[in-house]
């Protein structure tokens, strides 16, 4: 597709946006009616994962810092929401205070955990960030004694649903005569915030800061010699990425109503990283695609595995969960072999690979 010619034709462009907008607006009703609420939940999670993938994309895709502990910031956002809006401490802060606070605290945590890793890169950075991610999870797991802060492995339950004043998303909303069920309302909320994050990412990429990130990824020494304060710009990447994670975490807590350390394991970090890498590192549409595919495909497979096996063999031969991981691994290998720059790489990356094969 040639974006330049498309851009010239403004009417086509706006018609395209309008079409996408309409599809996104009616999607929850179509999915809810056609596939049921389970799928609507999956759709909501896809939105959360898009936010996470875009956050990690700033660190990994733009600045080129391989971070294997990214999910820690999701955990920070989620726990912050859980602690400040649940019966656990008896606090019920309003959402408009918690979510920005979650973003700021997660961003601070990002900078804090990023600071000791500034001199590391590649494998070493990956190992240290992996350690930090696990440390945060283990903290959540063990901070129930001597003072019970996180309630340990039991997690925190009965978290307040997303609500502003008397309007809560836990019950169906009636907007202009249309009844919007809770899941649908969360969908619109997540969609809105995902769009905000997409917008912020696009703006950042095409800016002085975004160029500095990519410059560090491309050649750190040259970036220094060009006058970039590499320390600050790296910390900014960690902090910005973590901010998105913190927001997504807060939304996750309000949506689930329950958080426990289990949700923030290494596997989650790896999943988000896979979304970024498979989709197309550093390319925003690719990362979004990665987030959607890697949320929906495994679930689709989970739903299909049992009926399919019963239809073919008359019984369940392989446990769908292990089969899922097997196929997931296979898919990763195939994509990396045949589309090494990701499913939807940026035009530049594509050019680069073609240039490399000459």
């Amino acid at each position, binding site marked *: 597709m040639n974006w330049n010619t498309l851009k010239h034709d403004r009417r086509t462009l706006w018609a395209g946006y309008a079409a996408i907008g309409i599809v996104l607006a009616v999607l929850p009703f179509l999915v809810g009616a056609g596939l049921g609420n389970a799928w609507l939940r999956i759709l909501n999670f896809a939105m959360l994962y898009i936010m996470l993938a875009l956050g990690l994309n700033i660190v990994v895709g733009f600045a080129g810092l391989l971070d294997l502990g990214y999910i820690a910031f999701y955990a920070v956002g989620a726990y912050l929401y859980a602690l400040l809006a649940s019966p656990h401490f008896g606090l019920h802060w309003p959402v408009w205070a918690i979510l920005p606070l979650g973003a700021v605290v997660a961003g601070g945590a990002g900078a804090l955990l990023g600071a000791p890793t500034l001199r590391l890169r590649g494998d070493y950075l990956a190992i240290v960030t992996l350690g930090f991610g696990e440390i945060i999870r283990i903290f959540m797991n063990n901070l129930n004694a001597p003072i019970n802060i996180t309630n340990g492995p039991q997690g925190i339950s009965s978290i307040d649903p997303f609500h502003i004043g008397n309007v809560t998303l836990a019950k169906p909303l009636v907007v202009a005569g249309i009844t919007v069920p809770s899941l649908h309302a969360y969908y619109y909320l997540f969609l809105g915030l995902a769009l905000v994050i997409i917008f*912020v990412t696009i*703006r*950042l990429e095409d*800016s*002085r*800061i*975004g*160029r*500095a990130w*990519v*410059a560090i990824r*491309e*050649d750190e*020494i*040259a*970036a*220094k*010699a*060009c*006058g*970039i*304060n*590499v320390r600050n710009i790296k910390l*900014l990447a960690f902090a*910005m990425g973590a901010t998105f994670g913190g927001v997504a975490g807060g939304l996750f807590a309000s949506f689930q109503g329950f958080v426990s350390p289990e949700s923030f394991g290494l596997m989650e970090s790896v999943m988000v990283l896979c979304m970024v890498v498979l989709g197309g590192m550093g390319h925003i549409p690719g990362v979004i695609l990665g987030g959607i595919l890697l949320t929906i495909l495994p679930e689709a497979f989970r739903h299909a595995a049992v009926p399919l096996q019963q239809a073919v063999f008359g019984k369940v031969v392989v446990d769908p969960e292990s089969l899922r991981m097997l196929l997931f691994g296979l898919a990763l290998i195939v994509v990396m072999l045949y589309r090494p720059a990701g499913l939807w790489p940026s035009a*530049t*990356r594509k*050019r*680069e690979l073609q*240039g490399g094969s000459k």
Partner: protein
Amino acid sequence: MSERPLLLEARDVAKHFGGVKALRGVSLTIRQGEIYGLIGPNGAGKTTFFNCLTGLYVPNGGSIVFDGAELDTSAPHKVAARGIARTFQNIRLFANMTALENVMVGRHQRTRAGVFGAIFRTPATKAEEAAIQRRAEELLHYVGIADRAQDLAKHLSYGDQRRLEIARALATEPRLLALDEPAAGMNASETGELRTLIEGIRKDGITVLLIEHDVKLVMGLCDRVAVLDYGEKICEDVPAVVQKDPRVITAYLGAEAQPAGSEVAHG
């Protein structure tokens, strides 16, 4: 020549790598508006001096006064802020960015937009972005590769990559431009064009510090030349005098041939 004011004065700059004394107290002075050559056999310490000057290495001793004030070489970006820009012996471009973007990165230090400005694209940020792009285009034109602006840096020819690196360095608004073997690997006509470019840069008021192996280029271009050997300055004078200095001749002809790669480690 000597009536020109001092721009840079290095005093006893020393750098050791374990037991290897790469720089044994090098002192030299660069005057405003001159093209100053730094030559010497492989491993003499030329690039080490560059790295100490531009903050990539922390010197073990000595000090550098630049433009009348002590130069803080603790971080490269502080050096760049003072007005010293450099290129690298083994070209270091942002390979997967376009030529234009490479030069735009060079404007980083001289521009201010932060996260807030980037997200909300305030009028000030917009104006700044436009100015960055305009300046980058001018510089690409200046070094003669305006037609390659939208090509990835890695797809440029070798000579164009050298030019792009110079354009990027110029984007930081340096008072001193330090070029590390800019003519390495160039043929005679490319070297000639490079020479014209460097002379033009000097004419525009930027002092040039040049490490170069191409003796003809150095002798023809430089106002003064310093010769390093085993980490020591053995001679500093106008090219005609340096060329005849017996110590220089011994350093060059007496030194055994070393692989070019050794300079990366020790130089």
